[in-house]
């Protein structure tokens, strides 16, 4: 029953999010601040992880290819497919659920604990629109982060290939171009938009409706990470089934 109640409250929160909009002059500044906090602020960690995991994917693929009949270009092909289809959109989203999600839950949760949300509501401001809507808009730029992750993942693979002598750069690039299906990029971005929606709203829900004190803010952040990850993985399964099968 608790789960049903939470799902119902989450849906009502989404509806409420779009009611009584905040003045555009104020909202504009909030969106820019959230783009800086959530998107620009995540680029560093996303770039670092993408580059090195891309490299690791390449090394693992190369080490497991001991049949001399398999062309070396398959390393580039496997890296591209892994990075574009799953690693960049899904794996990075799970990391973002930890970084961005816990930031959103703890910042909104702290506002709840310190009565700042009550202060907004007393003033007649739709606190959900004021706090959550700019985050949702900011995270609609999330595909931009994922495209950087895709690029750096593949670049990391190239670097690993070149420096580890697993294949020539030409073989790797040939592999990248083999059987390229542009729809896979569209599929990845569609998934990313869905994940971005969850990344903005699930942590906000856990922060906004939390009860208790400072300790509970930490607990809410953990719970929000778990549920955001569950939602992302589930949506990933559903969308992959719908869009690729």
């Amino acid at each position, binding site marked *: 029953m608790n789960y049903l109640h939470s799902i119902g409250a989450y849906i009502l929160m989404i509806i409420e999010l779009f009611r*009584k909009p*905040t*003045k555009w*002059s*104020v909202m504009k500044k909030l969106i820019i601040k959230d783009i800086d906090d959530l998107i620009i602020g995540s680029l560093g960690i996303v770039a670092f992880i993408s580059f090195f995991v891309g490299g690791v994917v390449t090394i693992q693929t190369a080490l497991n290819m001991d049949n001399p009949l398999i062309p070396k270009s398959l390393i580039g092909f496997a890296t591209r497919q892994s990075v574009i289809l799953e690693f960049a959109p899904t794996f990075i989203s799970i990391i973002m659920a930890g970084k961005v999600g816990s930031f959103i839950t703890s910042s909104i949760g*702290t*506002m709840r604990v*310190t*009565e*700042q949300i*009550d*202060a907004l*509501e*007393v*003033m*007649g*401001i739709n606190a959900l629109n004021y706090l959550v809507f700019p985050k949702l808009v900011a995270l609609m730029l999330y595909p931009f982060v994922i495209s950087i992750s895709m690029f750096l993942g593949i670049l990391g693979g190239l670097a690993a290939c070149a420096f580890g002598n697993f294949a020539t750069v030409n073989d790797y690039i040939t592999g990248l171009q083999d059987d390229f299906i542009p729809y896979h990029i569209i599929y990845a971005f569609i998934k990313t938009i869905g994940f971005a929606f969850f990344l903005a709203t699930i942590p906000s829900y856990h922060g906004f409706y939390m009860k208790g004190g400072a300790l509970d803010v930490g607990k809410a952040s953990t719970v929000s990470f778990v549920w955001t990850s569950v939602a992302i993985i589930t949506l990933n399964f559903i969308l992959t089934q719908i869009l690729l099968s």
Partner: protein
Amino acid sequence: MIEVKDLHKSFGDVHILKGISTTFEKGKTNLIIGQSGSGKTVFLKCLLGLFNYEEGSISYEGRIFSKLSDEQKRDLRSEIGMVFQGSALFDSMTIVENVKFPLRMFTKLSESEMDDRANFVLKRVNLENAHNKLPSEASGGMQKRVAIARAIVNRPKYLFCDEPNSGLDPKTAIVIDNLIQEITDEYNITTVINTHDMNSVMEIGEKIVFLKDGLKAWEGSNETIFKTNNEVVTDFVYSSELFKKVRKMYIEENV
């Protein structure tokens, strides 16, 4: 004037407010007092519309809160200033930005007009030199004064304060009490203060509503509270050793 009639509020099976009726008068500092757990905060949050109530009515100058449309509620809320127990200042904004916030949200004033208004109220609460500090850099007393400045910057008709003296030393607490009293007189507004600080009661309690177990146990002023024979009130008022001694001295002097 705010008129409350037969207000009931429950959380699940727990009945918190059990039918409170009272009025809060314009131009006066109205105090809600009572022990912890007596329902003061729930009552205040019902008055502010933060909690829905099951029965009864709250009327702001004839406007019954529960019957107002969303638009009317928003208009009414723009007439309300609130000082929260923990000040509830926005951490990410400087002091002056906190004060300008209601103006930015609800008025079409230019930046310079907002600056003028914010400077005026910050001066009014004796904080003219703290504009660019963050709330975390201000002391508890300063934060309370900023909260008062933010509450009055949009010239409210109603000012609500939830335990404005909690966590403050006695001297600063008196400064805050006097400031609230002066603002109430100056702007002729309806002020409702939730407190259990007996010093506040003595200083500014022009009208006092005493709550016990979700019911109004007594109503009066700072002049009558020390003369009442209501046992519930005297138990509360003379619970501290200091007040017991004051009472003993008062009785001895008069005998």
